């Protein structure tokens, strides 16, 4: 097993473990902190895939901006720990079946399809990504800036004191 494989397994197991804690922990703040850890481990996986720019963006935007927003709202709402409630057996079985079926199908398809034969040489550095963004994807890029503006206006409107 090479160092690359060990790094892959370490990062993916950490990602999944932190994900499990996110959805099982009853305290929202702990959940948010473990979501940060999940995202940082995923940035590690991005580095293993040579997507350096996206790894940086992942940490800056997700772990930095989005999670701070989440923590702000958790503190603002002053949520108490979620009370334990009775889980109805039928619903639990149906839910578990649905999740297992979806993932089973996906993983089955993944492992039964023809494996990729090309040797990966792609490196997601900033320069080629930026060039692509400002040539082939210029229109979506500009629309995205408009979307951010609209989202900002929406948030300002929604946070007004007397919502009409």
């Amino acid at each position, binding site marked *: 097993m090479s160092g690359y494989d060990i790094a*892959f397994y370490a990062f*993916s197991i950490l*990602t*999944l473990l932190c*994900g499990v804690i*996110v*959805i099982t922990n009853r305290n*929202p703040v702990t*959940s*948010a902190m473990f*979501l940060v850890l*999940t*995202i940082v481990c*995923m940035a590690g*996986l*991005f580095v293993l*895939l*040579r*997507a350096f*720019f996206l790894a940086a963006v*992942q940490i800056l*935007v*997700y772990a930095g901006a*989005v999670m701070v*927003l*989440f923590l702000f*709202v958790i503190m603002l*709402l002053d*949520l108490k720990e*979620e009370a334990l*409630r009775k*889980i109805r057996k039928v619903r639990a079985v149906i*839910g578990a079946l*649905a*999740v297992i079926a*979806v*993932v089973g199908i*996906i*993983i089955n398809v*993944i492992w039964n399809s023809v*494996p*990729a034969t*090309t040797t*990966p*040489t*792609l490196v*997601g550095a900033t320069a080629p*990504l930026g060039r*692509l*963004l400002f040539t*082939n*994807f210029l229109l979506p890029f500009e629309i995205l800036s408009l*979307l*951010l503006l609209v*989202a*900002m206006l*929406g948030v300002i409107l*929604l*946070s007004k004191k007397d*919502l009409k």
Partner: protein
Amino acid sequence: MNVGLEHYLTVSALLFALGLTGVLIRRNLLIMYMSIELMLNAANLAFVAMSRFTNNLNGQVMVFFIITVAAAEVAVGLALIVALYRKRQTAHVEDLTSMKL
């Protein structure tokens, strides 16, 4: 066995399953929102892995767009949750059963 595309896609599928389970089992709006973020991240991982193993940078541009849209979505969604909390004093979906505010 060397780590290949299949391994990354499997991790992505499992992460998606975690997010889906979170949405199904949790009743706290914020945690459900975090689970949705997990699912978005799983899709991102699949995109980046595919992009790397097909030598095509378009997938990474798509992830860039997804991250931006997710940031906007989180801002609007959290503002909605805060507005809802102001009206109802709760963030549990079981207390939010009627559509009228």
